[in-house]
């Protein structure tokens, strides 16, 4: 049994953005030496997410626009208060809610040393409160 953990750094460049990390995940799988197993892609932030969808720009925009409709930036949020542990106010409840709605991880099988996914599926890091330098874990388990 092989278990490998890799931390990817992703620099978002916009306030909201879907960043295709599929090649990074595929590279991590190839480098792991695992031929049969699983890969978990786990976002470490509560105002960002991991999304799997078709890799076309119109859908990327639709995903972000739909999440923005469900959790608008300006709303009556309890989070709009001083957070003593952060030394600042929390006014990004919308980003946290979008993170929950989109989820924080994805999982795919590995077979014959490669990531197994649908032909149109892409793995995205979803930024909801950028631009920021973010971290994503890629955990590979198998033999």
């Amino acid at each position: 049994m092989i278990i490998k953990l890799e931390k990817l750094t992703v620099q978002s460049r916009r306030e909201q953005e879907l960043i295709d990390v599929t090649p990074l995940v595929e590279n991590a799988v190839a480098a792991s030496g695992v031929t049969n197993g699983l890969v978990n892609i786990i976002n470490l932030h509560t105002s960002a997410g991991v999304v799997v969808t078709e890799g076309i720009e119109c859908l990327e925009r639709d995903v972000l626009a739909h999440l923005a409709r469900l959790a608008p930036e300006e709303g009556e949020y309890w989070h709009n208060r001083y957070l003593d542990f952060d030394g600042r106010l929390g006014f990004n409840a919308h980003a946290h809610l979008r993170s929950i709605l989109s989820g924080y991880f994805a999982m795919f099988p590995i077979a014959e040393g490669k990531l197994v996914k649908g032909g149109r599926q892409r793995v995205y890091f979803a930024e909801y409160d950028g631009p920021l330098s973010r971290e994503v874990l890629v955990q590979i388990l198998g033999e």
Partner: protein
Amino acid sequence: MIDFHTHPMLVQEMADRHPELLAVARDVFYIGNRMQPLETFHLQMDVAGIRRAVILPIDATTARGVKLYSNEQVAELCAMSDRLIGFASVDPHNPNAPQELEAAIRGLGLRGLKLSPPTQEFFPHDREKAYPIYAVAQDLGIPVVIHCGMSWEPKAKASWAQPLFLEDVAYDFPKLNIVIAHMGWPWVLDSVMLALKYPNIYLDTAALYFDNPWDFIAFMMSKQVPLTVFERSLRHQVVFGSNYPRVEIKNMVHAVKKLGLSEDCQHLVFQENAEKLLGERPA
């Protein structure tokens, strides 16, 4: 556009070179966010439409035993980016503070002075400790940004930071341009009174103490004081400031733009007034 109020607390490259800065940011200035590469600072400016940012250090050697950053570190950071405008800070309890200020401006190329009375624990109208520093700043023709009003730092008491303390300073140093940071909240009316009376008093918008940027700025600049006061009377004395990284620049830009100031007044607030303070535009 220029952001006249940012703090370089979370720049990863500087923390890598000077690891002690991380503890200072966490323990003294009480900011819990993750360190970020300088590129994130640039990107934060980009998404907000900001071209340049003033970075403000604090020399609290006597009161807290720390500097965030030293003047040399500010110069070091500015050497990494042509978008950053470095200000100096000196410790008012240090008898050599006036000479250190002059060295930072003439020797390191820094362009203004930042003082924070509640962090540095001095009264801004202290004739023995503060006046010699103001005299040098006035001679050098540089602006001084002074923290006024509430601070989120646990040890920083607002009783050191009342804007009215600056009336003596504005009167005694008529050629010294003084920026009341955070608009002196909650003493916004006091700050506005000073700015109305003294043309060398400026106000920055870097205030956020409850709710969110857009609701708070609207409360402060249209409820506590009518927006017309800023539009008609103080249009040449307000500069945009975000207080990044306590607040993201984009959110403060959005909040100030949403106020309803005229286009030409916004241009003054976001650009021309800052250029004037920096000596890049005739007064």
